[in-house]
Protein backbone atom coordinates (compact mmCIF):
# COMPACT_ATOMS: atom_id res chain seq x y z
CA UNK A 1 0.00 0.00 0.00
CA UNK A 2 1.16 3.58 -0.54
CA UNK A 3 2.65 5.22 2.53
CA UNK A 4 1.73 8.69 3.75
CA UNK A 5 4.32 10.54 5.83
CA UNK A 6 2.49 12.49 8.54
CA UNK A 7 4.04 15.81 9.66
CA UNK A 8 4.23 16.59 13.35
CA UNK A 9 1.29 19.03 13.38
CA UNK A 10 -1.03 16.25 12.13
CA UNK A 11 0.15 13.47 14.42
CA UNK A 12 -2.21 14.35 17.23
CA UNK A 13 -4.92 13.35 14.75
CA UNK A 14 -3.22 10.09 13.64
CA UNK A 15 -2.70 8.45 17.03
CA UNK A 16 0.85 9.86 16.94
CA UNK A 17 1.74 7.79 13.89
CA UNK A 18 4.43 9.44 11.77
CA UNK A 19 3.54 7.36 8.74
CA UNK A 20 0.40 5.52 7.73
CA UNK A 21 -0.17 2.96 5.01
CA UNK A 22 -3.45 3.44 3.16
CA UNK A 23 -5.27 1.93 0.22
CA UNK A 24 -5.67 4.08 -2.85
CA UNK A 25 -4.80 4.06 -6.53
CA UNK A 26 -4.75 7.86 -6.68
CA UNK A 27 -3.66 10.65 -4.34
CA UNK A 28 -7.31 11.58 -3.83
CA UNK A 29 -8.25 8.05 -2.81
CA UNK A 30 -5.31 7.74 -0.46
CA UNK A 31 -6.15 11.02 1.28
CA UNK A 32 -9.82 10.07 1.45
CA UNK A 33 -8.92 6.77 3.07
CA UNK A 34 -6.60 8.52 5.50
CA UNK A 35 -9.43 10.80 6.56
CA UNK A 36 -11.80 7.87 6.99
CA UNK A 37 -9.42 6.39 9.55
CA UNK A 38 -8.48 9.75 11.05
CA UNK A 39 -11.39 12.16 10.41
CA UNK A 40 -9.78 15.21 12.05
CA UNK A 41 -7.07 15.18 9.39
CA UNK A 42 -9.69 15.88 6.75
CA UNK A 43 -10.55 19.32 8.05
CA UNK A 44 -6.89 20.31 8.06
CA UNK A 45 -6.29 19.13 4.50
CA UNK A 46 -9.53 19.92 2.67
CA UNK A 47 -11.79 22.94 2.55
CA UNK A 48 -15.58 22.87 2.65
CA UNK A 49 -15.53 22.52 -1.15
CA UNK A 50 -13.64 19.24 -0.80
CA UNK A 51 -10.51 20.58 -2.47
CA UNK A 52 -7.06 20.48 -0.95
CA UNK A 53 -6.36 23.69 0.91
CA UNK A 54 -3.99 26.09 -0.85
CA UNK A 55 -1.55 26.07 2.05
CA UNK A 56 -1.17 22.29 1.89
CA UNK A 57 1.40 20.83 -0.49
CA UNK A 58 1.33 17.16 -1.42
CA UNK A 59 4.35 15.38 -2.85
CA UNK A 60 4.55 11.92 -4.40
CA UNK A 61 8.07 10.54 -4.16
CA UNK A 62 9.29 14.12 -3.81
CA UNK A 63 7.34 15.55 -6.77
CA UNK A 64 4.67 18.20 -6.20
CA UNK A 65 1.36 16.79 -7.42
CA UNK A 66 0.62 20.16 -9.06
CA UNK A 67 3.25 19.18 -11.65
CA UNK A 68 1.74 15.71 -12.02
CA UNK A 69 -1.99 15.04 -12.30
CA UNK A 70 -2.99 16.76 -9.09
CA UNK A 71 -5.15 14.64 -6.85
CA UNK A 72 -5.70 12.24 -9.74
CA UNK A 73 -2.00 11.34 -9.75
CA UNK A 74 -1.78 7.57 -9.83
CA UNK A 75 -0.18 5.63 -7.00
CA UNK A 76 1.46 2.24 -6.73
CA UNK A 77 2.08 0.24 -3.59
CA UNK A 78 5.65 1.53 -3.35
CA UNK A 79 4.80 5.22 -3.57
CA UNK A 80 5.34 7.66 -0.73
CA UNK A 81 3.11 10.68 -0.13
CA UNK A 82 4.27 13.60 1.94
CA UNK A 83 1.53 16.01 3.02
CA UNK A 84 2.95 19.33 4.19
CA UNK A 85 0.79 22.11 5.62
CA UNK A 86 2.58 25.49 5.53
CA UNK A 87 4.71 26.45 8.55
CA UNK A 88 6.51 29.66 9.42
CA UNK A 89 8.39 29.14 12.68
CA UNK A 90 11.50 31.26 12.95
Amino acid sequence: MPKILVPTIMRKHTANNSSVEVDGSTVSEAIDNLTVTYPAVGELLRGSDGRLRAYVNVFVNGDDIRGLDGEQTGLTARDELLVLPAMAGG
Partner: protein
Amino acid sequence: MTLHAPDFTKFQLDRYSRQLRLDGFGLEGQRRLRDAHVAISRGGGVGGTVASHLAMAGVGHLTVAHGGEIVPEYLNRMLLASPKDVGRPCVDAFADSLARINPDVQVTTYPEYVTDDNVRRIVGDADLIADGAPLFEERYALNKAAVELGRPLVSGAMYDTEGYITTVQPGRTACLSCIYPTKPPYWTDIKVFPAMSTAPGMVGAVMAMEVIKVLTGFAEPLNNQLMFFDLRTNVSRLLKVARRPDCTACSHLDNNDV
Protein backbone atom coordinates in the same frame (compact mmCIF):
# COMPACT_ATOMS: atom_id res chain seq x y z
CA MET B 1 49.82 26.31 1.89
CA THR B 2 50.43 29.99 2.60
CA LEU B 3 48.03 32.40 0.94
CA HIS B 4 48.96 35.96 0.02
CA ALA B 5 46.27 38.46 -0.78
CA PRO B 6 46.90 42.17 -0.24
CA ASP B 7 43.22 42.87 0.32
CA PHE B 8 43.09 40.60 3.38
CA THR B 9 45.11 40.88 6.60
CA LYS B 10 47.21 37.96 7.76
CA PHE B 11 44.74 37.42 10.60
CA GLN B 12 41.85 37.28 8.15
CA LEU B 13 43.65 34.81 5.91
CA ASP B 14 44.39 32.64 8.95
CA ARG B 15 40.85 33.01 10.21
CA TYR B 16 39.31 31.92 6.93
CA SER B 17 42.04 29.47 5.94
CA ARG B 18 39.95 26.35 6.42
CA GLN B 19 37.10 27.55 4.21
CA LEU B 20 39.51 28.95 1.63
CA ARG B 21 40.46 25.32 1.02
CA LEU B 22 36.94 24.40 -0.09
CA ASP B 23 36.98 23.46 -3.77
CA GLY B 24 35.13 26.10 -5.76
CA PHE B 25 35.18 28.68 -2.96
CA GLY B 26 38.69 30.02 -2.40
CA LEU B 27 39.82 33.62 -2.26
CA GLU B 28 37.33 34.75 -4.87
CA GLY B 29 34.50 33.33 -2.80
CA GLN B 30 35.85 35.03 0.29
CA ARG B 31 36.03 38.36 -1.54
CA ARG B 32 32.44 38.00 -2.67
CA LEU B 33 31.32 37.36 0.88
CA ARG B 34 33.32 40.30 2.20
CA ASP B 35 31.77 42.61 -0.39
CA ALA B 36 28.21 41.38 0.21
CA HIS B 37 25.34 42.80 2.21
CA VAL B 38 22.72 40.40 3.57
CA ALA B 39 19.51 41.56 5.25
CA ILE B 40 18.03 39.12 7.76
CA SER B 41 14.51 39.31 9.06
CA ARG B 42 14.69 38.53 12.76
CA GLY B 43 17.67 37.33 14.70
CA GLY B 44 15.87 34.57 16.58
CA GLY B 45 16.30 30.81 16.47
CA VAL B 46 16.50 30.71 12.68
CA GLY B 47 17.67 34.21 11.76
CA GLY B 48 20.21 34.41 14.58
CA THR B 49 21.76 31.16 13.42
CA VAL B 50 21.94 32.51 9.88
CA ALA B 51 23.59 35.70 11.13
CA SER B 52 26.07 33.79 13.31
CA HIS B 53 27.22 31.57 10.46
CA LEU B 54 27.44 34.45 8.00
CA ALA B 55 29.50 36.49 10.46
CA MET B 56 31.84 33.54 11.00
CA ALA B 57 32.10 33.04 7.24
CA GLY B 58 33.03 36.69 6.72
CA VAL B 59 30.02 38.33 5.04
CA GLY B 60 30.95 42.01 5.04
CA HIS B 61 27.66 43.62 6.01
CA LEU B 62 24.70 42.18 7.87
CA THR B 63 21.42 43.95 8.49
CA VAL B 64 19.22 42.46 11.20
CA ALA B 65 15.64 43.56 11.84
CA HIS B 66 13.98 42.45 15.07
CA GLY B 67 11.65 44.31 17.41
CA GLY B 68 11.15 44.01 21.14
CA GLU B 69 13.39 43.07 24.03
CA ILE B 70 15.04 39.83 25.09
CA VAL B 71 12.82 37.74 27.38
CA PRO B 72 13.80 34.49 29.13
CA GLU B 73 11.63 32.43 26.79
CA TYR B 74 13.98 33.31 23.91
CA LEU B 75 17.02 31.76 25.55
CA ASN B 76 16.31 28.13 24.62
CA ARG B 77 16.97 28.78 20.94
CA MET B 78 18.55 32.17 20.24
CA LEU B 79 22.32 31.88 19.78
CA LEU B 80 22.79 35.64 19.83
CA ALA B 81 21.17 36.22 23.24
CA SER B 82 22.27 35.31 26.77
CA PRO B 83 20.67 35.65 30.23
CA LYS B 84 22.40 38.97 30.90
CA ASP B 85 20.63 40.38 27.83
CA VAL B 86 17.14 39.96 29.30
CA GLY B 87 15.37 43.30 29.08
CA ARG B 88 17.72 44.72 26.43
CA PRO B 89 16.51 45.55 22.94
CA CYS B 90 16.93 42.38 20.90
CA VAL B 91 18.95 44.01 18.16
CA ASP B 92 21.44 45.45 20.68
CA ALA B 93 22.10 42.01 22.11
CA PHE B 94 22.37 40.54 18.62
CA ALA B 95 24.79 43.25 17.44
CA ASP B 96 27.05 42.70 20.46
CA SER B 97 27.13 38.96 19.84
CA LEU B 98 27.90 39.38 16.15
CA ALA B 99 30.71 41.83 16.98
CA ARG B 100 32.19 39.22 19.31
CA ILE B 101 32.01 36.58 16.59
CA ASN B 102 33.62 38.74 13.93
CA PRO B 103 34.42 42.42 14.48
CA ASP B 104 35.19 42.86 10.79
CA VAL B 105 31.50 42.51 9.95
CA GLN B 106 29.49 45.72 9.66
CA VAL B 107 26.18 45.24 11.43
CA THR B 108 23.16 47.46 10.79
CA THR B 109 20.17 46.95 13.05
CA TYR B 110 16.50 47.89 12.90
CA PRO B 111 14.62 47.56 16.20
CA GLU B 112 11.40 46.70 14.42
CA TYR B 113 9.71 43.82 12.67
CA VAL B 114 9.39 43.78 8.89
CA THR B 115 6.07 44.99 7.50
CA ASP B 116 4.78 45.92 4.07
CA ASP B 117 5.46 49.54 5.00
CA ASN B 118 9.08 49.27 6.12
CA VAL B 119 10.42 46.33 4.13
CA ARG B 120 11.97 48.41 1.34
CA ARG B 121 13.76 50.62 3.87
CA ILE B 122 15.20 47.58 5.66
CA VAL B 123 16.20 45.34 2.74
CA GLY B 124 16.49 47.83 -0.13
CA ASP B 125 20.29 48.07 -0.04
CA ALA B 126 20.95 44.38 0.51
CA ASP B 127 22.30 42.01 -2.13
CA LEU B 128 20.32 39.13 -0.66
CA ILE B 129 17.46 38.71 1.81
CA ALA B 130 17.32 35.95 4.41
CA ASP B 131 13.90 35.23 5.85
CA GLY B 132 13.69 33.70 9.31
CA ALA B 133 10.48 35.43 10.35
CA PRO B 134 7.90 33.57 12.45
CA LEU B 135 4.82 35.10 10.83
CA PHE B 136 3.50 34.64 7.31
CA GLU B 137 2.78 38.37 6.99
CA GLU B 138 6.48 39.16 7.37
CA ARG B 139 7.47 36.34 5.07
CA TYR B 140 5.10 37.52 2.33
CA ALA B 141 6.37 41.11 2.68
CA LEU B 142 9.97 39.92 2.28
CA ASN B 143 9.07 37.69 -0.66
CA LYS B 144 7.21 40.52 -2.40
CA ALA B 145 10.14 42.88 -1.88
CA ALA B 146 12.61 40.29 -3.18
CA VAL B 147 10.53 39.79 -6.31
CA GLU B 148 10.07 43.53 -6.90
CA LEU B 149 13.75 44.29 -6.29
CA GLY B 150 14.98 41.22 -8.19
CA ARG B 151 17.04 40.08 -5.21
CA PRO B 152 17.53 36.48 -4.17
CA LEU B 153 15.69 35.34 -1.06
CA VAL B 154 16.64 32.45 1.17
CA SER B 155 13.64 31.39 3.21
CA GLY B 156 13.69 28.98 6.12
CA ALA B 157 11.01 27.95 8.59
CA MET B 158 10.55 25.40 11.33
CA TYR B 159 7.82 23.79 13.40
CA ASP B 160 8.50 21.51 16.33
CA THR B 161 11.39 19.33 15.08
CA GLU B 162 10.80 20.04 11.41
CA GLY B 163 12.54 22.35 8.99
CA TYR B 164 11.71 23.75 5.55
CA ILE B 165 14.22 25.67 3.44
CA THR B 166 14.16 27.01 -0.11
CA THR B 167 15.99 29.59 -2.21
CA VAL B 168 14.09 32.04 -4.38
CA GLN B 169 15.66 33.50 -7.51
CA PRO B 170 12.87 35.84 -8.66
CA GLY B 171 11.65 35.08 -12.15
CA ARG B 172 13.56 31.82 -12.31
CA THR B 173 12.41 29.73 -9.38
CA ALA B 174 9.33 29.22 -7.25
CA CYS B 175 8.83 32.08 -4.81
CA LEU B 176 7.29 31.77 -1.37
CA SER B 177 3.85 32.69 -2.70
CA CYS B 178 4.18 29.99 -5.37
CA ILE B 179 4.73 27.42 -2.63
CA TYR B 180 2.26 28.85 -0.10
CA PRO B 181 -0.32 31.00 -1.96
CA THR B 182 -2.32 31.65 1.21
CA LYS B 183 -1.59 31.89 4.88
CA PRO B 184 -2.96 29.03 6.98
CA PRO B 185 -5.58 30.09 9.53
CA TYR B 186 -3.91 28.14 12.34
CA TRP B 187 -0.83 30.40 12.20
CA THR B 188 -2.20 33.21 14.32
CA ASP B 189 0.85 34.45 16.23
CA ILE B 190 4.41 33.64 17.28
CA LYS B 191 3.25 31.39 20.11
CA VAL B 192 1.71 28.75 17.82
CA PHE B 193 4.90 26.81 17.26
CA PRO B 194 6.87 24.68 19.72
CA ALA B 195 10.64 24.94 19.38
CA MET B 196 13.94 23.91 20.86
CA SER B 197 17.24 25.08 19.45
CA THR B 198 18.02 22.08 17.26
CA ALA B 199 15.49 22.54 14.45
CA PRO B 200 15.91 26.31 14.03
CA GLY B 201 19.65 25.81 14.36
CA MET B 202 19.68 23.29 11.55
CA VAL B 203 17.40 25.45 9.40
CA GLY B 204 19.62 28.47 10.01
CA ALA B 205 22.78 26.55 9.13
CA VAL B 206 21.29 25.32 5.86
CA MET B 207 20.07 28.84 5.10
CA ALA B 208 23.53 30.31 5.72
CA MET B 209 24.99 27.78 3.33
CA GLU B 210 22.37 28.79 0.77
CA VAL B 211 23.28 32.45 1.20
CA ILE B 212 26.95 31.62 0.70
CA LYS B 213 26.15 29.55 -2.39
CA VAL B 214 24.10 32.29 -4.02
CA LEU B 215 26.55 35.07 -3.20
CA THR B 216 29.62 33.23 -4.41
CA GLY B 217 28.36 30.86 -7.11
CA PHE B 218 29.76 28.04 -5.02
CA ALA B 219 27.91 24.68 -5.13
CA GLU B 220 24.21 24.11 -5.85
CA PRO B 221 21.47 26.25 -4.28
CA LEU B 222 18.00 24.93 -3.48
CA ASN B 223 16.53 26.38 -6.68
CA ASN B 224 13.00 25.02 -7.17
CA GLN B 225 13.62 22.69 -4.27
CA LEU B 226 12.21 22.63 -0.77
CA MET B 227 14.41 20.89 1.75
CA PHE B 228 12.33 19.20 4.44
CA PHE B 229 13.51 17.37 7.53
CA ASP B 230 12.02 16.03 10.73
CA LEU B 231 14.46 15.42 13.55
CA ARG B 232 11.94 13.26 15.45
CA THR B 233 11.82 10.61 12.74
CA ASN B 234 15.13 11.40 11.01
CA VAL B 235 13.27 11.76 7.73
CA SER B 236 14.68 14.23 5.22
CA ARG B 237 13.50 14.85 1.70
CA LEU B 238 14.46 17.15 -1.14
CA LEU B 239 11.12 18.15 -2.64
CA LYS B 240 10.56 19.61 -6.10
CA VAL B 241 8.57 22.83 -6.24
CA ALA B 242 7.66 24.95 -9.23
CA ARG B 243 6.49 28.44 -10.12
CA ARG B 244 2.75 28.99 -10.30
CA PRO B 245 1.48 30.62 -13.49
CA ASP B 246 -1.10 32.41 -11.33
CA CYS B 247 1.26 33.46 -8.54
CA THR B 248 0.19 36.82 -7.15
CA ALA B 249 3.80 37.79 -6.44
CA CYS B 250 5.96 36.63 -9.33
CA SER B 251 3.86 35.45 -12.29
CA HIS B 252 4.49 38.73 -14.14
CA LEU B 253 8.21 37.90 -14.38
CA ASP B 254 9.44 35.71 -17.19
CA ASN B 255 12.28 33.26 -16.83
CA ASN B 256 14.88 35.81 -17.83
CA ASP B 257 13.81 38.50 -15.35
CA VAL B 258 16.52 37.86 -12.82
